[in-house]
């Protein structure tokens, strides 16, 4: 009876809502949405280097793409969800109450998929609202049709849910909270960027989480800028559906890893 999915889901939900983690998640989601709003207010034409304005398709793309760059935040939340069990050694009691270990991991994945979607929805709605609000304020029309903007925002929200799952998997794999957080942060901020500088490996970029995310969100600014600086040609991103497929594959691998990783480990 312990393995009743409903009981495990309820427990995970209680765990998420009874600490401030949910509040930090909400603040991060609101913050990343608001961040896009602030950039819109400042105007891409005032960036260094200047970019096309909000009233151009590219300018709107850039701002949406920047929202896509904040996907590491929900990944960190997913990581904390698992690594905090190891850090605070609640993992012992959790495993005693659900000795078939994959069951509580599966419950975490399910609850954090929901949390990731909620995170993405909040971030996307705030960012979308801010973009349209700024456009009205400045008396301009966004450079992309409303439907396209909404579709891109929806994709970003989904991407955030996938990244939350990736984060859960990293947490299950690395256990040590600091190591896991550093690994996730370093990956998104440094490792993928560095990989893009290596000519041979650059071809892999479209298939890495960041490249697939870029394909999905239509954000190529980073890749283009790097290509411009290094004088090489930018890696060709996949099409949006292919990017989505790659991300889903990562999510599936993440689930498999997260569920399999704690199976045989000794819990001391």
């Amino acid at each position, binding site marked *: *009876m*312990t393995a*009743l999915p409903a*009981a*495990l889901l*309820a*427990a995970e939900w*209680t*765990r998420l809502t*009874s*600490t*401030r983690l949910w509040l930090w998640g909400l603040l991060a989601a609101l913050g990343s949405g608001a961040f896009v709003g602030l950039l819109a207010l400042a105007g891409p034409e005032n960036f260094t280097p200047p970019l096309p304005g909000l009233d151009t398709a590219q300018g709107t793309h850039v701002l949406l793409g920047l929202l896509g760059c904040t996907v590491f935040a929900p990944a960190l939340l997913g990581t904390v969800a698992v690594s*905090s069990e190891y850090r*605070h*050694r*609640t993992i*012992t*009691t*959790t*495993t*005693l*109450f*659900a*000795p*078939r270990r994959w069951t*509580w991991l599966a419950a975490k994945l399910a609850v954090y998929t929901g949390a990731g979607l909620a995170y993405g929805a909040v971030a996307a709605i705030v960012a979308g609202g801010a973009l349209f609000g700024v456009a009205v304020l400045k008396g301009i029309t966004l450079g992309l049709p409303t439907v396209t903007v909404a579709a891109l925002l929806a994709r970003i929200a989904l991407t955030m849910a996938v990244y939350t799952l990736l984060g859960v998997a990293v947490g299950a794999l690395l256990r040590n909270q600091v190591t896991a957080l550093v690994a996730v942060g370093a990956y998104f901020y440094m490792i993928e960027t560095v990989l893009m500088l290596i000519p041979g490996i650059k071809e892999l970029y479209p298939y890495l989480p960041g490249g697939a995310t870029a394909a999905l969100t239509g954000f190529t600014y980073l890749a283009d800028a790097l290509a411009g600086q290094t004088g090489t040609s930018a890696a060709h991103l996949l099409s949006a559906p292919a990017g989505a497929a790659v991300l889903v594959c990562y999510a599936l691998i993440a689930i498999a890893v997260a569920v399999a990783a704690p199976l*045989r480990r*000794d*819990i*001391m």
Partner: protein
Amino acid sequence: MNIEVRGLTKAFGPITAVTDLSFEVEAGSVTGFLGPNGAGKSTTMRMMLGLVAPASGTATFGGDRYADLPHPSATVGAVLDSAGFHPAHTARDHLRVYARMGGYGTARVNQVADLTGVSAFAGRTTRILSTGMRQRLSLATALLGDPQVLLLDEPSNGLDPEGIAWLRYFLRELAADGRTILISSHVLGKIEHMADHVVVIRDGRLVTTGPVTGLYGSATVLVRCAQADRFAAELMESGVQVERPRPDLLRIHGLSTAQVATAAASHGVTLREITREQPTLEQVFLHLTGGSR
């Protein structure tokens, strides 16, 4: 529900923690699981609960391994030294999470909180709880499913005398309900008055197992006399085992006080003091686990 441990073995790299350990715990008994620090008690309990994978051997509760029990947390409750709490959780939050996990209602959370005295600090975050409070919270968590079997790993560690007194009283109540309790300790005093049976291990191997009374062994007689030299020699000549802890003190094995007095009289030895000596469980334990050290 009987507990059966069969041939449990575990090594951590080059360190063998537990070697071919077998013992049984009878349903309804309170069994002391004794051994010095590092003997392998915690490792054994973790293997019994499926937290640590044994290299070989099994542990079963009523025939089922812990992980195969239909409702583990309602069958076996465990208080382990390694279990922690989320520092931002209140004591009640902690109980709520695991009550949800086991499928127990809020009413049960309140029951175990009242039973263990957690109610008095249920609203405090676990970060600021004292060792005694943490131990109560661990017990409350273990009792959520009202299990018939309890595994307690050195539950009195770090407790003050008051806490230990409370724990003893509390465990006695639980035992009186007919629960099967396995309680580990590196000192015997803490469970001496509770356990009916003992399992003694050392260096990961079984030393002895059986009823507590069997551990006491036979009594000895302690005498103080002026002619200790001569008396000791006479006794040893007739095949009696004699120790001499101090020059004027003899510890005589295998004779009653009456037999010692008679022997003294017949040898013309004047006794200044004669005491029947029952070794404490502590001494027995030291003797058993100390070996040749």
